[in-house]
């Protein structure tokens, strides 16, 4: 199913918001963030939002359950999950990232119910990119500016407006819902619109590729580059928190009197206390081990477990890292090691 929108996506968003909880890139105090839609057009020239849409599926903190009583007469109630959502204007890298997280959290052994339910009830409407940002490198890690991975509907920008294509049945249903806001895409060539996006220039991705850099991972692991990169690391959690594929979480309890809540919340392997155990033993005690862990996880451990990079090339970490610890910089230096 394909449809077209001339000029603006606003009528489509308005139609979508009528019967859906619509989330999209919005401008808030000059920042472009992914949040609940407030009736505005998509921000001009946004590349990716500051925060990634992963928080729709894996909120930064959520309560898993409530309990009454502590040591006695314990009563546990699981927390219900909020209703379905439409995530609009997601970039292809971020949509793919949702799929990537689902590899882990949706794996057969212990599927994460809460993540799974949200994933099933979230419709992802992806806007293909017609320009790469300063930090973009999706193509270097197997993605594409026109990729429909993880998306229910694809929107391709064209000279006249936009062409829409339903990728999944859920996408089709949603498109039908707002047919009135769209035109039939007569003569619109979705393939060529997609190909145009596919072909955009992406200077960073042309130069550097992670392929093969971790083949001899023992050597990579021992490389002195980690200490150099980590020397300037501030041990903050920016990289992991803005990353659309980082999914690490912690569980923690909060107690008031005799009742409480067990929360699940994001955590970052860059924090000093991430792996700190009772008795003060820390297997990754300094920035060096922690920085190495982050890169090794994305470039090697994830690959060996799930068969692909744990990175979609959105460039947020590179953009937001206060001290320029860049995924591609690490890869470039690793290439020299290999």
């Amino acid at each position, binding site marked *: 199913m394909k449809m077209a929108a001339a000029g603006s996506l606003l009528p489509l968003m308005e139609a979508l918001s009528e019967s859906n909880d619509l989330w999209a890139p919005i401008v808030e105090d000059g920042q472009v963030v992914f949040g609940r839609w407030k009736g505005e057009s998509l921000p001009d020239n946004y590349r990716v939002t500051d925060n990634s849409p992963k928080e729709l599926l894996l909120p930064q903190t959520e309560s898993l359950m409530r309990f009454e009583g502590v040591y006695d007469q314990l009563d546990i109630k699981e927390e219900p999950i909020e209703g379905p959502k439409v995530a609009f204007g997601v970039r292809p890298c971020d949509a793919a990232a949702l799929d990537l997280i689902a590899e882990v959290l949706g794996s057969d052994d212990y599927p994460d119910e809460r993540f799974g339910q949200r994933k099933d009830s979230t419709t992802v409407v992806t806007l293909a990119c017609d320009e790469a940002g300063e930090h973009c490198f999706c193509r270097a890690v197997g993605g594409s500016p026109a990729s429909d991975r993880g998306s229910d509907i694809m929107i391709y920008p064209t000279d006249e407006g936009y062409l829409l294509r339903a990728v999944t049945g859920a996408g089709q249903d949603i498109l039908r819902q707002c047919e009135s806001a769209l035109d039939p895409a007569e003569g619109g060539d979705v393939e060529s619109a997609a190909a145009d996006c596919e072909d955009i220039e992406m200077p960073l991705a042309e130069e550097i590729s992670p392929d093969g850099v971790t083949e001899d991972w023992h050597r990579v692991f021992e490389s002195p580059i980690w200490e150099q990169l980590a020397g300037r690391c501030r041990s903050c959690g920016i990289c992991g928190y803005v990353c659309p594929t980082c999914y690490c979480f912690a569980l923690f309890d*909060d107690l*008031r009197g005799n009742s*409480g*809540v067990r929360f699940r919340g994001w955590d970052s392997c860059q924090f000093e206390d991430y792996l700190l155990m009772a008795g003060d033993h820390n297997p990754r005690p300094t920035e060096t081990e922690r920085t190495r862990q982050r890169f090794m996880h994305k470039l090697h451990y994830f690959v060996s477990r799930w068969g692909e990079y744990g990175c979609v090339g959105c460039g947020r970490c590179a953009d937001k890292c206060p001290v320029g610890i860049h995924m591609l910089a690490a890869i470039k230096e690793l290439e020299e090691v290999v």
Partner: protein
Amino acid sequence: MSVDWKPKIVGFACRWCAYAGADLAGTSRMKYPPSIRLVRIPCSCRVDPSFVVRAFQRGADGVLVAGCHPGDCHYTTGNYLTRRRFSLAKRFIQYMGIEPERFRVEWVSAAEGGRFAGLVEEMTEDIRKLGPNRKMRERL
């Protein structure tokens, strides 16, 4: 606002003065609203401004920090530090959006039972007009 809502005030009271003042108000059978819950502290300078935020988080509609009059501190200078600290903190808490009536710092001596009762009455009335506090309130 529900009809039977009554303000909840958390009071941090120095054991040497304000707490004794509250005691005096009680033993003298002075009438004041039962809206305040007193926390006895060794000195007003024991109160970290985070306590005030915590009280608002956990459901206080108002917070009172009460210490000895300047010059009367049992530990000589504790309340001078309180004065500096809360001069700043009071403004800062208001800057974050809490109405000024909801947080007060006052000096109450052990002999000022009446003053203590009056303060609680005044604060209760001010807060009653504002209604329940929702700001900074946690929803667990």
